[in-house]
């Protein structure tokens, strides 16, 4: 019974973390794959979504589901505004990934500064009221329904993302741009419109990751950096620009953390997946799923 308990809890944790890692890494890789923006601010965007959810659900007292939809929805105009003001200026700049990286560091600094004198002063831990009450038993392992709902939503979102990229014409256009922007442009794809769309979509997915994280865990401001680093690591291993890679490696990261921390220790788990990253890079520098 105890072995079974630990086993199922390990699987659940792997899935839960894997889904969140996958979402965030997918968002990051969509933006990098299209506009070559390594968004160091992705962790801050993730945190922004989680904090906004907290404000909407706790301070304004909205129903958590309404609050979640509101936050994810609000990421669209916010992304469009940012794209309009800053991002599009660099679409034609050579070596723009460096410019974008600097830009995203500037954004990181501003958001971190704002968070630390607002939310950082209010509390050192933030918790969203549960989506729903009660507990479900997965065999001997009890899970709160709220976390289970977050997991199911996350899986559904990943499936929807895949469907969008695979079957919808926008999704196909995004992938065409990922593969070869000149060819896509010749085939009549409006590359700039796709850039904008990718930026919005990428941020939306990151925001969704932040919202789900906030439902599954209590959090504080420090989650932003660790999430940025994790997302980058996943993107590098998976192959930048590959959503399949991001999701596959995100899942592997989640399960590695769960399994290694169950059978060795949480510290070994952290070192091991970062070490695995270095090892994979040594053998296959372009990432596992690079085209």
């Amino acid at each position, binding site marked *: 019974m*105890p*072995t079974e*308990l*630990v086993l199922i*809890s*390990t699987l*659940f*944790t792997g899935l*839960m*973390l894997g889904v969140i890692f996958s979402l965030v890494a997918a968002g990051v890789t969509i933006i990098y794959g299209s506009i070559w923006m390594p968004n160091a601010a992705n962790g801050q965007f993730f945190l922004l979504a989680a904090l906004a959810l907290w404000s909407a659900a706790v301070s304004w007292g909205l129903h958590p589901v309404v609050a979640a939809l509101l936050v994810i929805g609000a990421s669209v105009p916010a992304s469009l505004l940012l794209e309009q003001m800053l991002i599009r200026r660099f679409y034609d700049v050579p070596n723009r990934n460096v410019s974008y990286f600097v830009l995203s560091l500037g954004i990181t600094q501003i958001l971190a*500064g704002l968070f*630390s*004198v607002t939310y*950082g*002063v*209010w*509390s*050192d*831990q*933030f*918790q969203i009221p549960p989506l729903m009450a009660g*507990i479900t038993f997965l065999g001997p*392992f*009890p*899970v*709160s329904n709220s*976390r289970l709902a977050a997991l199911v939503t996350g899986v559904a979102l990943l499936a929807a993302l895949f469907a969008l990229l695979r079957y919808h014409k926008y999704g196909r256009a995004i992938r065409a741009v990922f593969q070869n922007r000149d060819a896509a442009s010749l085939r009549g794809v409006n590359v700039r419109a796709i850039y904008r769309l990718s930026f919005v979509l990428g941020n939306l997915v990151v925001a969704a990751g932040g919202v789900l*994280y906030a439902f599954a*865990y*209590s*959090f*504080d*401001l*420090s*989650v932003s*950096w*660790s999430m940025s680093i994790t997302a980058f690591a996943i993107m590098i291993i998976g192959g930048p620009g590959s959503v399949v890679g991001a999701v596959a490696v995100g899942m592997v990261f989640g399960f590695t*953390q*769960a399994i290694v*921390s*169950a059978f060795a*220790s*949480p*510290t070994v788990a*952290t070192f091991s997946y970062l070490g695995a990253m270095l090892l994979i890079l040594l053998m296959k520098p372009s990432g596992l799923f690079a085209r």
Partner: protein
Amino acid sequence: MNRTIVAAGLGLALVTPQTAAAADQESVKVGFVTELTGPWSFFGTACVAGLKFAEATLNPPGKRKIEFIQIDNQTQPTQAVAAARNLDIQSKVIALSGPTSSDTALAIYGYAEQNKVPFLVPVAAFPQLTKPGTRYSFRIEPNAAGWGYAIAEFVAKQKPGAKIALMHSDFALMRAISAGLKYQAAKKGLKIEPEIVFPQGSNDATVQAAQVLAANPDYVVVVGAGGFDNTITNQLLDVGIKPEKIIHPYGMATQVKGWGKRSVGSLYGTFFDANLDTVTAEGRKFIDDFKAQNKRLPSYVENYCYVTSQIIREVIDADPKAGDDREVFRNTLSALKSKEVTSGIPIEFDKNGARKEYIYFMQIQDVGEVEYKSKPVFTTNWDPEIIPVYDLVK
């Protein structure tokens, strides 16, 4: 550069005539280097909030004025050293105070000891801040290894031979607590198993909660950093650990609120709590005023920063020269025998600048929007060197 002067000296704005002697003297400046931005900003800001309440009564007419000069250290040791230097040289403060974090406090400690500036640490629990040979640094908060000692004492009294599961984040503070706990547990015949350490930046403890449940301990001592503390607690409760088995080495008002109603019955350590009946009239007023302004109760962090201001007042009052001479300030502070105005707990420093230590273990009764109810179930006090703290934690 326009410096934020915390002690706005509002008291002086009253038209009360002052005695000539006090009016002639320059005000005494105390440097307050704390965490207003960066990862620790919550604690620094809470500390300053506590300090501000003390200032209402800090400068009664006829006494020499004390002003606190506050500088943000960005939770960054280099900035903390620079700020200490700035206050020492530019503002010529008589003493330093303020930090609530491990590394910033130790960074200033090094500066203070090397440059002979009295340094009164309000809230930082590292044993090494008062290691043998310390001359200029004094600490108000008990050291963290001692908290671990106290937990072992508490558990041994509740259930001799008990088995304790220990889960903590890998921060110096928590390592110190666990070192003290393990040392004293061995002496008291308690068993620590399993011990689970989470690296900084951890976010999930589901598996570990299941492992703890499987080990079936009598108590679970839990201490995580920030939001993670809440996550571990929730996940322990989710897998079915009873709240009565959970001990948090420390609990601030925001934490208790975060643990929430489902944690009713669980235990936490503290050094000042609104639910203690030892709180004095002044302490009660502080709690009420703080609650009205901040929509939460103050905890030991705010209290210690409040008390910091009281201690400095008493040192300046005890020896008129203490306001101008750091050596006199240091000696007066070292010899001070007083009580916390808020709680009546004695203030007295040993040769290394550590206090006679104490802790209350509280059991949560109810958690509301702003307030929570808890009752003391165990209290103890001890000599800082009852266990070899300075060898246990380097």
